[in-house]
Every structure is written in C-alpha cells, then in structure tokens.
C-alpha cells in the first residue's frame, strides 16, 4: 500500500468543541485524515476520544466547530444521514441487537441500499423476495469475510466477547462504508483474539475502507497506524507518524510513559509482517 503525501483529505475537524454541563470534553480540536490511511486517535482514559467519534457520527451534537466528510459538511446532520454518507462505526460498549441472530444483526446494518419502499414491499412480492435474497447474500459474504459463518444463527449473548465484537464489525461493514470508525476494537480481547482482530482490520483496510481508530493497546496502534493524533483533556497535544509520536516528549509524559519507549523500538506497519 503506497502512501503518497498529496493524498486527499477525507475527514476534517475544524475547531471542534464539546461541552457537557460544566465539563469541556473536547476543546478546539482540529484534525485532518488522509484518504487511504488508518488514522488513530489516542490518549488517556477520559481524554475525550469516544466523544470525538460520537460527534463525528452524529450521536452527539457539537457545541462548536465543523466537521467535513470529503466535501460534505456532516456536523449538524442527523446520525442516520451521516451514516448515509458511507460512514459507519462500532461502539466502545457493544451495541448489538440481543434478540437477533448474528446474521440478522448484520443484515440490519444496512437498509438504505435496499430501495424498495414499504408500500411496494406490501404488494410487489417478487421484488421483495429479490431484495431479501440480495441482502442475505451480502450478509453471507461479510460473514465469510470476517470468519463468522459458523455462528451465523447464534445469538450474541451465547458467544464469547471477541466474537460479539466481530459481529459488530461485520454489521458496520454491511453499510459498505468508505470510512469506518472503530472505538477500541481490541479492548477486552485476549492476546490471540487481538492478533485475529488486527488481521481482520488490516483486511478491511486493504479492501478499500479507510479507518479511524481509537485504541489503548500500543502494539496495535504503533503497528497499524499511518497517522496518530494524541489528545489529553480534550485538547490535541501531538500528531504525526507512529515513529514521531513515540519520540514525542509530551506524549510520553502524558500517556505512554518512559517504560513504553524503552520496551519498544521502531513502529510502523512494516513491523506487522
């Protein structure tokens, strides 16, 4: 995957601020994410990372600032409208549909590509069947891509946490996003699950989807990120490549700690293979 420096900006935050009652969770944050990159947002607990994704995807209104997805101003739009610009996401705390099977969960990830309206659905049985078939096939394809075929009729509550996280990832792919937001995808996974998940994330990226990632696990972050933005108390304290971030004294002080620097050498995606 080459990475020329002039690539287009696909996501831009301009002076974004979020205030909860007295607390300023995100403060005057600006950042640009380039096309065909994995861009990571890191920072200590409570730094405001999830709040950033929640604002971008429309689940929280901004207090101030603007957000653009490609040329579309998405700040101020409703969450479902933002999703329709081909942004999808997973959640830090899983939000699966517990009364549906894995496959039904995944199929529900996408309604807007199924164009048949309700009244046509009631009367045009043939078209309805075709659409249902197309939706099933798409879900089967994604199940296979993620490696969940065997669990397709299982209910989330009966599966290990790692598989539930994969189900949520699969659901987010159903929307055929061009930009995918992952909020701590590796949290709570055991080491082997984590390796599996990182492989899948790379597969997703290589299939053409750009990824905006929040993650605490530094192995994951330093290995797969192209660019990293670091925030602390809602403000940006650094940005750059994994190599630059690992050397940044501010970041080491606020987040990584000295220990990290000693234990780890070079970062960058090359190390993965």
């Amino acid at each position, binding site marked *: 995957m080459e990475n020329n420096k002039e690539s287009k900006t696909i996501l831009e935050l301009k002076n974004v601020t979020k205030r909860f009652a007295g607390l300023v969770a995100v403060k005057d944050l600006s950042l640009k994410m380039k096309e065909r990159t994995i861009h990571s947002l890191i920072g200590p607990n409570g730094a405001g990372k999830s709040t950033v994704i929640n604002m971008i995807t429309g689940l929280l209104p901004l207090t101030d600032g603007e957000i653009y997805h490609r040329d579309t101003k998405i700040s101020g739009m409703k969450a479902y409208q933002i999703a329709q610009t081909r942004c999808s*996401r997973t959640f830090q705390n899983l939000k*699966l*549909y517990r009364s*549906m099977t894995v496959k039904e969960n995944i199929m*529900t990830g*996408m309604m807007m590509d199924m164009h048949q309206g309700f009244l046509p659905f009631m009367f045009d049985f043939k078209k309805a069947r075709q659409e249902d078939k197309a939706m099933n096939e798409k879900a089967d394809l994604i199940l296979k891509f993620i490696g969940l075929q065997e669990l397709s009729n299982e*209910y989330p509550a009966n599966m290990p946490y790692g598989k539930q996280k994969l189900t949520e990832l699969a659901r987010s792919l159903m929307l055929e996003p061009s930009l995918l937001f992952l909020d701590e995808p590796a949290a709570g996974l055991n080491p082997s699950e984590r390796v599996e998940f990182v492989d899948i994330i790379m597969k997703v990226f290589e299939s053409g989807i750009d990824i905006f990632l929040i993650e605490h696990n530094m192995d994951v972050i330093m290995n797969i990120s192209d660019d990293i933005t670091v925030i602390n108390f809602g403000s940006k304290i650094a940005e750059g490549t994994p190599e630059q971030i690992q050397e940044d004294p501010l970041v080491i002080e606020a987040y990584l700690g000295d220990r990290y620097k000693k234990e780890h050498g070079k970062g960058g995606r090359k190390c993965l293979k």
Partner: protein
Amino acid sequence: MKKQNKTLIIALICIGIAAILPLFISNNYHLNLMIQVLINIIIVLGLNFITGLTGQMNLGTAGIFSMGAYTSALVATKSGVNPWICLILAAVMGIIIGVGLGYPSLRVSGVYLALTTIGFSEIVRVLMTNLTDLTGGALGVNNIPVFSIFGHEFRENKEIYYLYLVIALLLIFNAYRIVNSKWGRSFLAIKDNPEAINASGVNIAKLRIMAFTLTAVYSTIAGSLYAHYVGFMNPSAYNIEFSINYVVMLVIGGIGSVAGNIAGAILVTIVPELLRFIENYYWLVFSIITLLFVIFLPNGMLSLFNKKKSMKK
C-alpha cells in the same frame, strides 16, 4: 429452508383446524367466542408492530379500535355505503390516527406514545358519549349492516366466522411477511438498540411512525369487522382496561413473533371464559397468571418451544 418448511407445515395444520372446528360446534356462544378470537388476533398482530417490535407502549387500543368501529358503523348507517367500503374507510382512519398521533409522540424517545394514546382513548370515549347527534351517545349506533358478497349476506355466525377467518389469514400472512423482513428487523432493532440502528443509516422516527400506523390500521380494521358483526356499537366498553387486555395478550403469547401473538390472543380470549365460575376472583387469578408469565417466561409462552431464544440474555 428446513425451518421454513416446518413453519409452513405447522401453519397449514393450524389453518386446517381453524377451518374444520366450526363443523363440530353448533353452540352459538362458542361460535361467538371464536369470532371474537379472530378479531383479537388481528388487534394483537397490530399491537405487535409498535409495542412488541419497536418497544413503544400503546395504551390506546380502545380509542383506535372504536374509531374504526364507529367510522364503519356511522358511514354504513347514515349514508348506506357498502360495508366493504366502510371497512376500507376504517383502514384509512387507521392511517390518519397512526400518523396523526405518531408524528408528535414518536419523534422523541420516551413514554410519550403511552401518554398520548391514553389521552386519545379518553377523548374518543368522551366524544362518542357526548356527540349524541352523530354517535347516538350512550345508546350508540344500531342496525349496522352486515357484509355481503354478490348479494349473499353474512348473517349466520358460522358464515361470519369463515369470512373473518379468511380476512384474518390475509392479515396474519401480511404481518408474518413484515416481521420477517428488513422492516420487522429494523423495528426490532429500534427496541434493542436505537443508537446502533440510527448509526446504520435508519431514520428511527420515520420507522416508529410506520410501525404505529400499521398498529392503528390493524386495530381500526378489527373495529370495523366487530361493528358489522355485532350490529351495534356503544362507547361504554372502550376504556383503559380494554386496551391493557391486549397488551396482556401480547406479553403472554410472546412479544415479537406472529405465532406468539396468535397464541396469546386465543388464550387470553378463551381462558377467562373458562374461569367464569370463579366470578369475582377472576381478575385476581388472571393478574397473577399474567404476572407469573412476565416473571418466568419474559419472552412469552412460545419461548417454551424455542430453546435458543429463551436463553436468558
């Protein structure tokens, strides 16, 4: 495929039983009960969309049902319009109620729908009682004509049963299709996790209003069928207790599934009749049974047969 075949076979057996049952029944009271079961099935199937799937409480069945019944009854008696047309008008009334009540109360989350529908029901009841010139007040509307096909009037209970069975089957089939489609899944997703379905590009408000409109249309159709069956309407029975009874059917049968809805409607219509002998204790016993269901079988009666779904979540 296998599961679908099984569903189909069970459905055909049930339809077969429903079709031959009247051949063994001559007692008019029992036939009457069976017609009532059909009407209740239609109402519960409708209620399933908004309360069972999207999880919004509708306590206005009484008001919606009686609006359907009165629309049909008044148009038929005052202007002599064919009852079939009245049935269609009742369905249109359902759409009006669904959008009219749904639009203000379902765009925001919370318990607004429960409150609006209770209020609506009370207003309907007061208006039906007091607009004496139009509705006949407490005395109600009488001599509501029966349905007829090619000049044949459906007057006998047995005939009406078969006619309504056909209508109920169409509505059951329709409900089954919706529940098992992208629409049903999206409705259910709204209850399970509104933020997630929202982030998947679905306009929750619009879907909730759609689900409620379906509910309302099923209820007004049931109201119309009822009015043309009994031949008279008065407002006295359409209070909150009436509405709650349908929520009970929904809960007992199994929220979300069509088969559960049908089972709940049959059970809750028939069991009270069997419990008649305990008279005053009836409501007490019935409430206890309902409570036990809610505690021990939160997914309804049918979850007994569906191991996977009954796994505690």
